[in-house]
């Protein structure tokens, strides 16, 4: 082993390069690592030279085509000291060889994350490592975390390393990557944090075995206890104990050996190397080895006192038979060895269900099998409230969608929208009905919904040539652009201020109605107490306005109330909204959201939040129409809240882009070249000439 200390494996200041960095797992893990500690200087992937891995809130990672190219182009001070290998199994040998032959003396450690690497390649890697003077961890390691330096390589700690790994004095060395994380989180209940978390991997050959790591942990100043997770296969533990017996420094070891149950069965466990392959390699042999070395029988949680009596002031360690016994056993070891806690222990490990619904089964079960729901710890409690207990909206799972879609398909003969053939829809459905199918994933329930949506699109077509979006189309025509560019110019001229208010209105309506029992927005008899909702809303609005004014900051207006054109009367109306409202009245249709908006406009004036009744503008009408369609789907959790919020803006954009096309056609036919240009002498300079 080349590293002389655990920090030699990974410390602050180490620079990391990642192979195959654009792969699914490598790019995701690298992004999180970069946000956590920012130690990745570059990556390489064949055919991806010149691209970058963007990191939200962190430094983006440049991607090179080959390792050699990366080393050549990086300045000497930026060259990697560590390499993580995410290459496919058959490429691992070539990639490591390339790195080790071209690293120009910079790389000290290679971490091979890849699974299913052949044993022959693993043996060759070992020879390469010895020849080149580097350490190789793996294959199939998950990586290493140095908690005190707040740096990691690989995926140790998952997407939130800080949540599991608190600074402390336990060095966790595990055959299972998952167990590094799991054990670290359990140790918090003993008041123990982690110095280093090391995943050795558990292939048949472990390239940096325990006999190399354990002596380093024994010498590490930040480490006062070593916690091991061990599986059958190999004689690594026997060699490690031999190694530390030769050394003079010892620190207590806490160990869990898994897999004894499989000895009587001819089965293979999860890890490739977890197979009994000779004398001393079985789980039972490893248990006996540790028990003999510790000179203390396996930990018995029911008889803890005997261990404090039997253990000397320099205990060699303890073995546990159940993973959850790690906590009491660690506590006993700490007491015997006078190791101080790293922090106040978190609550003890226990059965703590987050969700329990046993229904009728609960009535026939013994009481201890019907557990009470426990408090959900931070940071999950907030997330549970958001995703699980919120009353409306679907929670979706995420997956790579490059070549996948729920919305459309084509089997080579028939294009489909949410499983319905487009040709069939062309015969039986209208354009607006099909658009709503495409946007919502199911056909509209009522025919009038398509009619109202149609009206909303028409209302969105135009508000005259002076609107920003129409001006966008005209500018584009004036410049001689093609029709698609003009349509893009129209779309490019709408935004959160012009057209985007519908999204704000949708968000507001969801906030107001999500805690009511509203199910059918078209049933006036089942509507919640709208006056009460308005009154509460206006009260809160006035409070926010007052606080904002006192702070001298702008307050957030009520979305879609008022219009720059229709605002001259004591009571104002937007004529386009009026038409939608009147058609609904004529057809005896009710929409609870539009009703709320009308009451809100009046309530704002009556409760002295405004001086006149503002117009409920067309964006509000459009939003109310779409929210009427979307609300039952939200209640049934068939669409997400985010989708419902996007709908009004999408509808406005769809209507307005058609209007923009009209402006373009007119302007292209009748306008003069560059007629949208403002003459120089009409432009004002607001600064001062500097020369």
């Amino acid at each position, binding site marked *: 082993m080349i590293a002389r200390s655990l920090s030699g494996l990974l410390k602050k200041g180490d620079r990391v390069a990642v192979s195959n960095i654009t792969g*699914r797992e490598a790019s995701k893990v690298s992004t999180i690592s970069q946000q956590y500690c920012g130690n990745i200087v570059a990556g390489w992937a064949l055919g991806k030279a010149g691209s970058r891995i963007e990191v939200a809130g962190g430094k983006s990672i440049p991607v090179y085509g080959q390792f050699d190219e990366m080393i050549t182009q990086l300045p000497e001070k930026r060259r990697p000291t560590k390499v993580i290998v995410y290459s496919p*199994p*058959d490429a691992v040998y070539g990639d490591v060889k390339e790195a080790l032959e071209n690293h120009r003396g910079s790389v000290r450690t290679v971490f091979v994350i890849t699974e*299913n*690497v*052949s*044993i*022959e390649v693993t043996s*060759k890697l*070992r*020879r390469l490592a010895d020849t080149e003077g580097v350490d190789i961890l793996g294959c199939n390691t*998950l990586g290493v975390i140095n908690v005190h330096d707040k740096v990691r390589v690989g*995926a140790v700690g*998952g997407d939130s390393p800080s949540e599991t790994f608190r600074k402390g004095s336990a060095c966790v060395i*595990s*055959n*299972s990557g*998952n*167990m590094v*994380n*799991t054990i670290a*989180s359990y140790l918090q209940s003993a008041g123990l944090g982690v110095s280093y978390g090391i995943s050795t991997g558990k292939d*048949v*050959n472990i390239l940096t*075995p325990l006999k190399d790591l354990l002596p380093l942990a024994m010498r590490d100043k930040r480490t006062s206890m070593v916690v091991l997770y061990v599986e059958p296969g*190999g*004689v*690594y533990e026997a060699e490690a104990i031999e190694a530390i017996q030769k050394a003079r420094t010892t620190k207590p070891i806490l160990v869990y050996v*898994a897999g*004894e*149950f*499989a000895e009587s*069965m001819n*089965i*293979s*466990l*999860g*890890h490739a190397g*977890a197979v009994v*392959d000779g004398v001393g390699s079985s789980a039972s042999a490893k248990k006996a080895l540790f028990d003999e070395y510790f000179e203390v029988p396996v930990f018995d949680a029911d008889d803890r006192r005997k261990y404090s009596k039997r253990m000397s002031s320099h205990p060699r360690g303890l073995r546990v038979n159940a*993973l*959850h016994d790690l906590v009491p056993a660690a506590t006993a070891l700490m007491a015997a060895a006078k190791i101080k806690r790293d922090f106040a222990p978190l609550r003890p*490990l*226990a*059965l*703590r*269900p*987050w969700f329990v*619904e*046993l*229904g009728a089964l609960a009535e026939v079960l013994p009481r201890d*099998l019907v*557990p009470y729901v426990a408090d959900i710890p931070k940071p*999950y409690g907030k*997330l549970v409230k958001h*995703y699980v207990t919120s009353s409306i909206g679907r929670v979706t*799972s*995420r*997956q*790579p969608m490059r070549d996948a879609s729920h919305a459309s398909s084509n089997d080579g003969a028939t294009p489909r929208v949410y499983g319905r053939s487009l040709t069939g829809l062309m015969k039986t459905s209208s354009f607006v009905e099909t658009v709503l199918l495409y946007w919502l994933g199911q056909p509209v329930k009522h025919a009038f919904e398509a009619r109202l949506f149609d009206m909303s699109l028409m209302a969105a077509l135009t508000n005259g040539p002076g609107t920003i979006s129409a001006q966008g189309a005209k500018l584009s025509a004036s410049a001689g652009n093609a029709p698609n560019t003009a349509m893009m110019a129209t779309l490019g001229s709408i935004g959160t201020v012009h057209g985007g208010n519908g999204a704000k209105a949708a968000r507001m309506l969801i906030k107001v109605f999500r805690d009511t029992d509203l199910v059918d927005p078209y049933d006036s008899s089942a509507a919640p107490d709208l006056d009460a909702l308005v009154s509460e809303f206006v009260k809160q609005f006035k409070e926010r306005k007052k606080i904002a004014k006192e702070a001298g900051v702008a307050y957030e207006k009520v979305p879609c109330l008022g219009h720059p054109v229709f605002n001259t009367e004591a009571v104002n109306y937007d004529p386009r909204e009026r038409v939608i409202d009147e058609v609904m009245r004529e057809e005896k249709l009710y929409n609870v959201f539009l009703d709320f908006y009308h009451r809100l406009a009046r309530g704002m004036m009556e409760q002295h939040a405004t001086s006149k009744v503002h117009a409920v503008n067309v964006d509000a009408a459009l939003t109310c129409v779409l929210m009427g369609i979307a609300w039952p789907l939200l209640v049934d959790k068939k669409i997400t809240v985010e989708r419902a919020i996007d709908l009004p803006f999408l509808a406005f954009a769809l209507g307005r882009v058609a209007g923009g096309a009209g402006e373009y056609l007119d302007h292209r036919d009748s306008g003069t070249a560059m007629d949208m240009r403002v003459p120089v002498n009409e432009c004002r300079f607001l600064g001062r000439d500097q020369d």
Partner: protein
Amino acid sequence: MSAQIGELIFLEVLAARFKIPTPDFVVEPVRQSDVKQKLAAWGSGIVKPDVLAGKRGKAGVVREVSDCHKAMTLLKKVAAKVVSGQQPRTAYMVQTVPADVEVFSAITYNSRYLAPSLTVSTKGGVDIESVSEADKVTVPLNVFRGLNAYQASQALVKAGLPEGKLNSKLALCLVKQWDMFSATGMQSCEINPWRVTRAGSVCACDFKGTFDQNNIKFKDLGFELPEYPTSVDAFEEEMNAWAAASHQGQAHVADLGGNTILPMLFGGGASTIAIETLAQAGGDPMFLSDFGGNPPYERMKKTAEICLRHKFADASLLLILGGKANNTQIDITFAAIADALQEWVDEHGPHPIPVVIGRGGPGLVQGFAVMKKTLENLGMPYVFFGPDTPITLVAAYAARLAKQCAKANGGAK
């Protein structure tokens, strides 16, 4: 992952390819006249089953014969006799070879050296595990250079076969054994014994070996591995094929013969611990599984579909358990399992057994939300645990709950 091979494929294909001397042999079905002719030439033969029995499993079935009729009867009997739970593919008879010395040799990857190694012993011909370590000689090999005749010869000298004609001849055979090991991507190969006479004849008289299925050479052996009758059930067979279909995410299962708990487990370590705890607590799990390694949605969905198709109807409890994942997206894996559950119920009707879940990791709460909604839709009772409950406690709870449910259903199915 490794693929075991028996002696017959060694005799039929590998020995000839690598010029390793072996005894003559015939394979059942064989004509009586051929057997008669062979026995006349050999003097006697040894009838063996072609079976992948571990260790010395087939030792009790092997018989020496010199009579043609006896040989024909034995070949039929041995071909049909189950050995250590395994059904033979066929039986074969090899020539009896005289020996003055029996030598054991094994080439394998050695976790002590992290390299291949050669082990030899002149106490061959018996169960090698019964031979004391002092009577075995193990030498590490350079994986790039392999084994040369000098190294092999020196190992044999240390094992008690002095330098000379016999030593040289056997050393050359050991080099051929290395060539076979290396060229075909083997993980281990053992010849026990080499039967050696003072007159200088050397013969490889029994063989067992495993290929490393991850080795690229294994994928291009140039011959088809024979199909052995398998004791693996349809579920394990389908899962094994599915596991081999992709390296994206694990799909490993091993049948445990239980009847009560259908365990979908995540992580090599967590799955081992969970099954160990279930077994200790009398949980009667149907199989061991590891579905970790961040499987994409499609991979996980089909994995869950296979599990449910084969095992769900007979299960009294569904256990979904893993530690605090580093990399596996819980929302994706849970959405896939939830969708597979929904489809199973759509096709087969309700099966409202309790579902116990214990998990942590990225997208956990979103995953819980999806799973909770699906289970509520399907009317399935559930208990969910987060990463603040140790997996061993969850497994023990699931074992107790499953026992109660099986009892309530009129005893374990």
